[in-house]
């Protein structure tokens, strides 16, 4: 966290130094700072790990999520327009590994944001997440897809 703040400060400093506060300039500053910090903190494994690994994971997750978003948006959109929609909706319970409130919430949100799935509720024992999905060919496949894809990456990112 400290490193992140330092990085932001560096980017601001860069913007001030160059005398131009714009998105592009700040981004440049941030990248420069990131690189600089990577170099600076090469020996301190522990801390470097958390910040730099996390940041990479975030980027990876964001890319994955965007891909999912676009792909399934397309699928839903196509289906909506089609004269005879090929939907197989269903309510599926997914056993979750997420434990803390934040984890559960983010997971549920991410699932909801992904087109085709929608979090309905968490069971009272917080072990199962019930979702409504547009295309349930086989519930177990869906469960696996979500656990392996979204949940794993998300928890990886959070822990």
């Amino acid at each position, binding site marked *: 966290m400290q490193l992140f703040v330092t990085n932001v400060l560096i980017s601001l400093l860069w913007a001030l130094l160059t005398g131009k506060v714009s998105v592009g300039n700040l981004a440049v500053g941030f990248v420069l700072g990131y690189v600089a910090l990577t170099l600076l903190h090469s020996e301190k494994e522990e801390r470097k790990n958390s910040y730099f690994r996390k940041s990479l994971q975030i980027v990876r997750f964001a890319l994955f999520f965007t891909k999912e978003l676009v792909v399934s948006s397309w699928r839903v959109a196509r289906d909506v327009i089609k004269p005879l929609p090929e939907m197989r909706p269903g309510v599926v319970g997914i056993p979750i590994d997420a434990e803390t*409130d*934040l984890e*559960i*919430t983010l997971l*549920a*949100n991410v699932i909801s944001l992904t087109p085709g799935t929608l*979090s309905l*509720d*968490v069971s009272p024992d*917080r072990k199962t997440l019930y979702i409504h999905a547009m295309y349930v060919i086989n519930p177990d496949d869906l469960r696996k897809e979500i656990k392996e894809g979204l949940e794993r990456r998300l928890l990886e990112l959070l822990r």
Partner: protein
Amino acid sequence: MTSIIFRTATRYMFPPLLVFSVYVLLRGHHYPGGGFVGGLFAGSAFSLYALAFTVAEARSILRFDPRDITAAGLAVALLSGIPPLFSGNAFLTGTWWELPFMDLGTPLVFDVGVYLVVLGVLLTLVFALGEEE
């Protein structure tokens, strides 16, 4: 009505919303916004909290009774009209002091009063309605 998801989202949204409300308040003189919308934002944040948790909890994090906030806001708005009187001007004449980072004027103080009133009013209403059995 407890939902982990809703509660958690609320817990994380609450502080930024308050910050945002103050931002809207302070920027209102130059950009869209101002005391009224700012106050509504702040009030909405607390209302959200009351929805996600309980009215009692929302009351406890608010600390003050909404009615006191309302009265205080009205008092601030009224008092903001007083300073010009000392310089022989009419009630509610804008009086400005130039500070290094921004201009501070009685109209802004007035807007703060508006903010407080709106916050207090909204919460008075929402809390009372929420407590209605």
